[in-house]
C-alpha cells in the first residue's frame, strides 16, 4: 500500500565537519591582531553551517588580511594586490554551487582595488566580502592607507596624514545596486560572528567592514572604544543583525534602524561621534549578475555540439 514507506529517502550520509576541518596553516598574524577574530568567526560559521570544505573558496588580494586563505583548510585564492574582487566574481560566475568568501584590506580594497570594489558591489554576485580595516598598510610596514585618519603618523606621512579618510561604508552605500552593507568590530566576537553569519546568509554581494586595530602600528586607534562601549552605536532591528540579550546589554548606546531605509543608513554611516555597528542596509531583491553569468551551466556536451554545428552552418556558402 503506497504511503507506508514514504519517509524513506536515500541521501548521501551527512558529514560532521569540526572546527579542525576548516583550520589550515597556523595563523602567522601578530598576536593581538584582529584578523584572528575574523578567522575564527569564519571557521565557526563554516562549521555551524557545515559548509563542505571542498565547496568553499576564500579569495583574497595582497596584504596582511589577504593571508586569510592560507589559514583556512578550504580552497583558496591568494591573488594580486587589489584584484580580489574580479577573481571572486570569476570564481562565482560559473559555480553557483560554491560558497565564496572574499577577504580584503583597506589598502587592497579602498586604494589599488577601488574600481573593482565599486563594480563588484554593482554586479551584486553572491559573495561574502570582508573588509578588514585597520587604517594602515601593515604588511609593507606602516604606510598611510585611504582610511587612515588625519594626523596619524606613518612612514609615508611622518608629520601625520594630510587627507581626511575615505569612509568605505558611505562609498558602498552610494553604489548602485548595493544589497548588503554592514559594519562590526573585531573585539566583540558575538557581534562579529552574527554579522558575518547574516552576510553569508544574504544572497548577493554582502559587504562587511570590520573595524580593527593593528597591534603593531595602530594599536591605539580603537583602544578607548574597546573598553568604553558607549563609543559604539549598536544598530538593532528585527530584520537586522540580532545578538542575544547578554551581549546586547554590553552596549549602552542602541538605535532602532530598519535596514530597508537607505537614507537613514546613509546618515548613520556619516556619524563620526560614534562607531555605528550592525546592518546599515539590505535589499534582498537587488538584481544579481551571477544569475546571468551562470546561464547554461551544465549544458550537455551533445547539446553544445549541436549548437556549434548550427552556428557554423550560418556561414556556409
Amino acid at each position, binding site marked *: *500500500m*503506497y*504511503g*507506508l*514507506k*514514504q519517509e*524513506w529517502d*536515500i*541521501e*548521501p*550520509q551527512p558529514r560532521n565537519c*569540526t*572546527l579542525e576541518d576548516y*583550520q589550515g596553516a597556523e*595563523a602567522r598574524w601578530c*598576536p*593581538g*591582531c*584582529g584578523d*584572528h*577574530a575574523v*578567522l*575564527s568567526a569564519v*571557521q*565557526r560559521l563554516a562549521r555551524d553551517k557545515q559548509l563542505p570544505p571542498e565547496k568553499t573558496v576564500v579569495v583574497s588580494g595582497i596584504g596582511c588580511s589577504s593571508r586569510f586563505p592560507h589559514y583556512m583548510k578550504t580552497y583558496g585564492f591568494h591573488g594580486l594586490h587589489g584584484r580580489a574582487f574580479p577573481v571572486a566574481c570569476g570564481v562565482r560566475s560559473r559555480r553557483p554551487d560554491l560558497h565564496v568568501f572574499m577577504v580584503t584590506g583597506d589598502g587592497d580594497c579602498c586604494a589599488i582595488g577601488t574600481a573593482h570594489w565599486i563594480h563588484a558591489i554593482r554586479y551584486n554576485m553572491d559573495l561574502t566580502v570582508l573588509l578588514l580595516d585597520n587604517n594602515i598598510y601593515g604588511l609593507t610596514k606602516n604606510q598611510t592607507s585611504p582610511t587612515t585618519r588625519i594626523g596619524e603618523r606613518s612612514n609615508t606621512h611622518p608629520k601625520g596624514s594630510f587627507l581626511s579618510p575615505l569612509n568605505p561604508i558611505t562609498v558602498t552605500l552610494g553604489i548602485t545596486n548595493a544589497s548588503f552593507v554592514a559594519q562590526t568590530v*573585531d*573585539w*566583540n*566576537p*558575538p557581534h*562579529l560572528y552574527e554579522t558575518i553569519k547574516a552576510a553569508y546568509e544574504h544572497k548577493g554581494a554582502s559587504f562587511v567592514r570590520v573595524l580593527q*586595530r593593528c*597591534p603593531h602600528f595602530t594599536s591605539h586607534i580603537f583602544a578607548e572604544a*574597546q*573598553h*568604553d*562601549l*558607549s563609543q559604539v552605536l549598536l544598530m538593532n532591528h528585527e530584520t537586522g543583525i540580532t545578538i542575544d*540579550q*547578554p*551581549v546586547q*546589554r*554590553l552596549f*549602552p548606546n542602541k538605535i532602532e534602524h530598519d535596514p530597508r531605509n537607505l537614507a537613514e543608513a546613509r546618515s548613520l554611516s556619516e556619524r563620526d561621534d560614534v562607531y555605528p555597528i550592525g546592518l546599515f542596509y539590505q535589499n534582498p531583491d537587488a538584481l544579481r549578475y551571477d544569475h546571468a553569468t551562470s546561464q547554461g551551466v551544465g549544458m*550537455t*556536451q551533445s547539446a553544445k555540439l549541436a549548437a556549434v554545428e548550427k552556428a557554423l552552418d550560418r556561414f556556409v556558402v
Partner: protein
Amino acid sequence: MPAVVTAGEGLISRQQLRAFHLTGKGLNQAEPEGPMRPALLDQLPRLASLESGYPVYLAPRQLPRPLVEYLKEIVERHASAFPILSGQLPLMAHAFQRAAQDLDRVTIGQVAEPALAYCATFLESLHVDGQLVAKEIARLGKELDEAAWIVPFSGRAAPILYAAAVEASRGSARAHFIESLKECRDRVRELLVLDDSHSPDAGSAESLSASLGMEASAFFSTDLLAAALQRPVSALHSMEADRRLRCEAALVTLDAALERAAGEPAIYFFSAGDVRPAVSPIRASFRHTSTPFGDAVEFCEQELNRLAITLRALRTARLEVQTGYEPSIHDELLERFDWQSADAYELAALPAIAVLESAERLAETSLTGFGQALRSGLPVQILVEAAGLSAAALKAFVPDFGYLAIAHREAFVLQSSLACPNHLLAGLAAMAGSLRTAVAVVSVPQREIARAEGWTETLLLYLSHAVPAYCYDPGLGESWPERFTLLPAECGAESGEVLNAVHAIAVSRRFRSEFRLIPNGAWDGEQMELREYLEKYSQRAPLAIPFLWILDNEGNPQRAVVTRDAVNLCRERGRSWRIYEEFAAIRSGSEKKLSEPPDADQAKKEGAKQAIYRIVAMLTDTQVAAPVVAGESAVAPVELPLALAVAPAAAEEAPADPYIDSFLCTSCNDCMKVNPRVFGYDGNKQAYIADARAGTFAELVRAAEGCPAGCIHPGLPRPNDQTATAQVLLKAAKFSR
C-alpha cells in the same frame, strides 16, 4: 404512452389489486406500456435546467470542466464584446449539447457552426437585435478553441471523462519525472566520460590529436606529446571497479526507462466488455480480457517492479553524482527499496492502470476479482458503470459496490452520476490523482434508451437518493467526516425526501411490470398514496395498497399501484441514504466534528507561551537585580559590564579563581604567547583557563592587560605566589575585585 383501462372491461377487484401488490402478478392488461410520468415531477423545476453541466470541455493538460465555464471565461475576458451572450451562457452550452448529442465526443470546431446558428435563431426568436447577436456570435466563434474536444451527455461519456482527468492530473508529474530522469542520465554520462579521461589510455596519441583540433597533426608529433602528457601522476584515481559498474548499470537502466516512457499511453484499460471505450484524443491502450481485475493487478505489479528498478537506478545515479554512494549503507537500503518507497510524483508518473467494468458483470461474475483488486493495495483504478438500477435489485440482494469498497477502508471510493457532472468531474480528478486503489461507481443511463429518457432516469435515481453521490478519500484524514463527503441531492423547490426510488423506477421502462394503472372507477379508500404509506410504515406494512400519482398525456392524474418489492426497494434505498448521512456526520456525526481537539493543542500552545514568559521574567529579574547588587561598590556598572552580564552571581564579590569570558575572546593568540599552559582554546577556538596553576598571577595579569577583548579576569593570587606584588595587585584590580 400510459394505458387506461376501459370501463367496458368491468371494475378491477380489490383481491386482484392486493394479489398484484404482493406478488406482482395479474392485471396484465393494466400494465403501463412505457415509462410513466409521476405527477410530482411537475412540481420540480424544469429538469433540463439541471443539464447545463453538459457538454464537458476538454483542453489538453486541463481537468475536464463544463463547457459553460469555458464560455464564461471567454465572455468575461472580453466583457464589453458580449453584452448579449454573457447573459445566455446556459443557452449556448445547451446549443452545443444539442449539436453534439449523438456523438461520444467531438472537437468544438466540428459543431461550432450549427451550435452557434442555433443560438442565433433562438435569440432572434426572443426578439433580440439580430445584427448584434450575429456580431457577438461571430466574435465568439473566433475566440473558441476549435481543436479542443467536448463530450456531450451520453451513456458512453464516463470513460473519456475519466481518461481526460488522468491525462490532466498526471501529465505534469510525468513530464517532471522524465525531466529528472534525463537530467540524472546526463550527469552519470558525464561521470563516466570524466572517468575515462582519468584512465591512463585517455592520453593516447589518437585521442590527443583528436582533441587538439584539425590542425594538430600539421604541427605536433602527437605520440611524442602524448608520451609527455602521460607522465604526470594522476591525482584522480579512476573509479573503483564496482562503482564504475554501478554507474554503467544505472545509465543503461535510465536510458531504457526514457526510451519506454516515450511510447507509453496515459492509461491502460482492462475490460471484459468488448466495446472499446472511445477516449481519443487521450492516448490509451485497451486490453480485452475475461479476467480484467486479475490481469490489471498482475500488470500493475509488473509496472511497479519496473518502476522500482528505474528508481533504484535513479537513486544510485543521484548518489554517485554527489559522490555520496556508500556501499555499506546504500547497498542494503536500495536492496529494500521498492515501489512503495517512491516519491508521490514518481508514482503519479506511471500510466494509470484501470479496470472498466459494468455493474451487471461485476455483480454476476467478477466480484471476486473486484475484492482481489481491493486487497492488492496496488494503485489499480476501477471504473464501474452502473446503467440505471438493475432489475435484479427488486428480486434479490444486489451489493452496493461503493459500500463494499468503503469497507476496505484504505481505498479511494467515488460514487457519482453522470447526472451531477460537477461532482463527477471533481471526483474523477481526485481519483486520477490518487495513488491508492481507487473505485469509481458511476451511474449512467442505459445505452439502448433515448437520451432524454436516460437523462431523466439517471437524474431521478440521483435526486431520489436511490443512487447517492459521495466520495471517500482516506488521504484526507483519520475520522469519517474528514474522509467521507456526501453530496446532498437538491432537486429544487422541495427536499430530497419528496422523491423516492419508486419515482425513479417509474420513469424507466425496465420496471413497468411493477406498476398497474387503475381507472378512477376503481379508486377507493383502501388505496394509499405511496408517500403517506411509507410514513405509516414503521414496523409492519399498513393494510393498504400504495399507489403513485401519474399524469397521462392529457395531464389527467392516474393512480399507479406499486408492488411490495418496489416499496421494499424504496425503503432499503432510504435506509442506506441515512447510513451515508451518518458516515458524513451530517446527523449524529456533526456533534463529533465539534468535539475535535484543536482547542486541546491550542491550550498546549498557551501553556508553552506562559512558560516562555516565566523564563523571560526570571531573566529580566536578574537584569534588574544585577546592577543593584553592583551598586554596593563605588564602581559604576559601566566599568564592569562584562562581569555583570555574564556571571551576575559573580558580581556579589570578586571570585578568587581566574576566569575568562570565553564568548568574548577574539582568538588573537596574545594570551597564548604569555603562557600556553595556563590558557587553552575551547571547541570554538576561544580561550579559557586551562590550568591556572601552570603559571603565575603576574602572567595572568599581563595576559589580561594585553587582551584586546578585556575578557580575562585574573581573580585573586594564590597564597605564596611571589609574583603578586602590590603593583601587580593594583593592576589586577582593573579586571576583577
